[in-house]
């Protein structure tokens, strides 16, 4: 009679211990309370799935959402300020994958680090999920990712029936001239967004993050649309003037048909939560007829 209650007690004890352990494990991997982010796109993600209040420090280039403007700055890719980072007493720091020095120092200080590398559109979504889980917002981040995916799919569907337009996607060039053109080379999240929006990257076959095409190459590949995404390179007042720089190449279909666009909105170049917005905006530019 005494053995059975002892076995049951033992089982209950084990179960209780197990529950306690899981609880403890969850406590250990609990949501960080002080997050520092060196990557603007990931800062946006944090705010988008509700971890905004935990952010205590951002990079020198962060400016969205508006809340980050009042936060302390800790440097960026080339000049991360370890002292400032440490002085903010973070328990979670988001770094670029290439910032191995920072990661080593964080490891020594026993601070959790999350490293990020540029890649395609898919990796934006998977980063949202991974980051969300790491900061204890698995549910919210999953919802955000699904939401974004949904919007991307919707855009894709809208332009599905239309012929994709061969597009030259320009990131930078010298003002008032066609020298120093720095364009998408067929790889990366901007290239993927272009695909979603119903365009074909003119340098798809090259598969590099960026290329510097010569005038001859541009003439030979004859893009149907020229889309310059230059949030920092052109002042709004100069957009018209800068568009006319392309008039030097009249045989290019984009120039002949007046389909040269310069977009200066910041969100277009951030591989963060607003990619769906970016895809929509670009789709509207490429295929206005699908949005009437």
């Amino acid at each position: 009679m005494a053995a059975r209650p002892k076995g049951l007690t033992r089982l209950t004890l084990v179960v209780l211990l197990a529950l306690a352990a899981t609880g403890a494990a969850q406590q250990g991997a609990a949501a960080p309370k002080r997050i520092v982010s060196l990557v603007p796109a990931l800062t946006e993600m944090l705010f988008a799935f509700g971890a905004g209040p935990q952010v205590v420090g951002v990079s020198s280039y962060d400016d969205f959402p508006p809340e980050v403007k009042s936060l302390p700055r800790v440097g960026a890719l080339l000049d991360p300020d370890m002292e400032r980072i440490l002085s903010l007493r973070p328990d979670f720091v988001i770094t670029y994958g290439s910032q191995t020095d920072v990661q080593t120092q964080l490891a020594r200080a026993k601070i959790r680090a999350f490293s990020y590398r540029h890649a395609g559109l898919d990796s934006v979504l998977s980063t949202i999920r991974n980051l969300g889980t790491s900061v204890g917002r698995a549910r919210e981040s999953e919802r955000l990712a699904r939401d974004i995916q949904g919007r991307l799919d919707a855009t894709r569907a809208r332009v599905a029936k239309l012929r994709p337009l061969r597009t030259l996607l320009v990131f930078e060039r010298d003002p008032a001239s066609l020298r120093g053109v720095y364009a998408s080379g067929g790889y990366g999240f901007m290239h993927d967004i272009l695909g979603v929006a119903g365009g074909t990257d003119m340098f798809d076959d090259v598969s590099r993050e960026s290329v510097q095409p010569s005038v001859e190459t541009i003439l030979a590949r004859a893009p149907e649309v020229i889309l310059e995404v230059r949030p920092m390179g052109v002042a709004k007042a100069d957009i018209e003037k800068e568009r006319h720089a392309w008039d030097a190449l009249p045989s290019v279909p984009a120039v002949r048909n007046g389909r040269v666009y310069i977009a200066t909105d910041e969100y277009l170049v951030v591989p963060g939560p607003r990619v769906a917005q970016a895809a929509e905006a670009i789709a509207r530019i490429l295929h206005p007829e699908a949005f009437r």
Partner: protein
Amino acid sequence: MSTLDSTVAVGASALTRPVRVRLALAVGGFGALAVATCLLAPLVGSTTISLARVFDRSIPFSENVDAQIFFIARMPRVLAGAVTGATLAAAGVVFQAMLRNPLATPFTLGVSAGASLGAMTAIIFGTAIAVGPLSIVPLASLLGAGLAAAIVYWLATLRDRAMSTTVLLLAGVTLNAFFSALILFLQYLTNFAEVYRAMRWIMGDLDVGSFQPILAVLPLVAIAFAMFALLPSSLNLLSVGSDAAAARGVNVARTQRLAFVSASLATAAAVSLAGPIGFIGIIVPHLVRLLVGVDHRVVLPASALFGAAFLVACDVGSRTILAPLEVPVGVITALLGGPFFLWLLVRKG
């Protein structure tokens, strides 16, 4: 034996031919080479075009891709290459004579570092500004070059009106180091796209896209060459010795200053047009001297012509070797320059 007989007898050796003859042969030979290169270069490129289509008048220009590639992409590029190559080669000859050193280059005295700093500043900070029809990058580059040249000039003439070569070299080396440090600092301050574009500019780029950038620097190049025309015989005498030259009627101080100003102006113009393309200013004069001797009256014009041909040929390589990707032309000249120098060293040793 009368003096006339002696002259004829000795004329058999090429280098004792009268300089008139040598000059005519050199200009004729290298001139033909330059013209041929410039005529053939636009025919070659990363895209195949049909010459018949290019000159087919029945197709309106705005629709004729082949014609546009030929006249908008390639021709200005070939012309830019010819102008830059001629200018850098000639500037190299003048700097070498002025510094009494065959290893001097147009970039030894810091003019190119100044130009690079100017261009870099414009690429990184002045992205939205354009002055009239010209992009700010070449203008800033000229200003930077002018600043560097002015500093070196001032330092070199502080104590010696005739521009001591030692001070020139020291000032140039110092300026090169200082400006390079500033350039690195600027790159540190900025973001990726700009660093990449800045690095690309430093590797040299002849893809001007239109004749306008060339026309913009042409007046400077013309002035520089007009000054060059007055220098060669004085440079000959000067390179034998300062006192000897003065005793033969050369105004040493004026010649040094004229050489410095003209060669700096030429270098500034070339660098602002196409970026600092290295090795032209030293490979071309060396090769030319091997063929025509060292008399500057022949070497200067011959180098200008050969420089034009050489750079245009390098640019053809740049456009075709890894098509559709371009190898920056500065990389091609560097790849040719290194082995060339090794060969020179082996030969001398």
